[in-house]
């Protein structure tokens, strides 16, 4: 997995670039079984959050206009990459979370299943039509994406739970800012890199790292 982010430095992902947060505080990511320091994180500040939201906002019109079948193709390619890297992702997950390797393989499988499900977006997102609700008048429903979403996800399933959210958000044509748990964000950083490689356009999936201060800044964004 090629990455602009190193394996140990957590980077924000904004506008398709891996960038260092500009905050002043830092946190370590550790292996809960050994105490080994696995990674370092700079806590994002409000300016970093604003940049991520601005990036997601800017990417929305073009992504929304991308046909659902093309959005699904990105997810199909991501699914293939996740299968290819499943074992290394599982090892990474055990190292940062602590759960046993078989459970980590299962968690990544649950994440992949959400990508697979979201690949069905051309049918999942269809609307409905009824002709002649009154004489000569037709009625239809259309499902339209809403714009920019945010997801703040917990430490206990740091791969699966983000994938309950962002694959659907992007499949439906929205863009999103994700704040992973600061306790175990490493494995998901690898998955974001795979999503880039799969062709997810810049600004569609943004990541800001940090603790609850970053979560608070994110939910207060207007």
């Amino acid at each position, binding site marked *: 997995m090629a990455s602009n982010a190193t394996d140990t430095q957590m980077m924000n992902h904004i506008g398709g670039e891996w960038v260092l947060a500009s905050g002043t505080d830092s946190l370590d990511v550790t292996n809960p079984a050994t105490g080994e320091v696995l990674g370092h994180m700079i806590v994002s500040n409000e300016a970093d959050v604003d940049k991520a939201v601005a990036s997601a906002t800017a990417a929305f019109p073009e992504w929304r206009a991308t046909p659902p079948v093309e959005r699904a193709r990105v997810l199909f390619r991501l699914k293939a990459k996740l299968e290819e890297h499943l074992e290394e992702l599982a090892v990474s997950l055990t190292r940062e979370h602590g759960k046993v390797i078989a459970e980590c393989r299962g968690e990544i499988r649950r994440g992949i299943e959400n990508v697979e499900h979201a690949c069905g977006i051309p049918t999942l997102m269809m609307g409905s039509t009824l002709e002649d*609700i009154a004489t000569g008048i037709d009625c239809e*429903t*259309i499902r339209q994406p809403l714009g920019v979403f945010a997801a703040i996800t917990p430490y206990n399933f740091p791969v699966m739970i983000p994938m309950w959210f962002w694959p659907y958000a992007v499949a439906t044509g*929205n863009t999103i800012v994700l704040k992973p748990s600061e306790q175990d964000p490493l494995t998901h950083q690898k998955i974001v890199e795979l999503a880039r490689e799969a062709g997810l356009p810049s600004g569609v999936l943004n990541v800001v790292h940090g603790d609850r201060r970053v979560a608070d800044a994110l939910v207060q964004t207007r």
Partner: protein
Amino acid sequence: MASIYGSTGQRCLAGSVVVGVQDAYEPIRDRILDRASALRLGNGLDDAVDMGPVISAAHARRVEGFINRGKDEGARLILDGRGATVPGLPNGHWVGPTVFEGVRPGTTVGNEEIFGPVASLTRANSLEEALALIKKNQYGNATSIFTTSGKAAREFRYHAGISMIGVNIGVAGPMAFFPFGGSRASFYGDLKAQGQDAIGFYTDQRVVISKW
């Protein structure tokens, strides 16, 4: 057992309170105690290990705090995971498998989400009494029944009032094409994760009425 001790209890569907109905109680207690005692704690990358650490030192202290509280409130601690150690891994955040029995409704360990490897056992005289225990708790994420009776299973799913229900399944975690989410104090919002709800959450249904 996977329901209680999988992911070291750190999952939202972790089995927490185990209710044995009538004569089923003693065999359930004995089997949980036997198997919990045999779980091997250690680094999750080692295939011989059954249960890893909890996420942080702070969380280990929190779980141990719940165990202390359970003892103080009068539950019988029949397997104590406090102060667990693993040879060669002195810096891990270890809490061993823990089992309480005689856990009363309304007590802290009977009510709260411990999010650690702690089973709280109690006895009920009937399925109705067991269902009443579910209703007394503010949370409602997942619940399971283990039975050979189709009638009991049917009664359980009819009356439990919980969003994710397992019948002879300990972790009733819906797959991607079904909705994942709880009820009561375990849920905030109106649409769940995954499934068709995920599409509903990320889109708005616009209605267009046309006349030409």
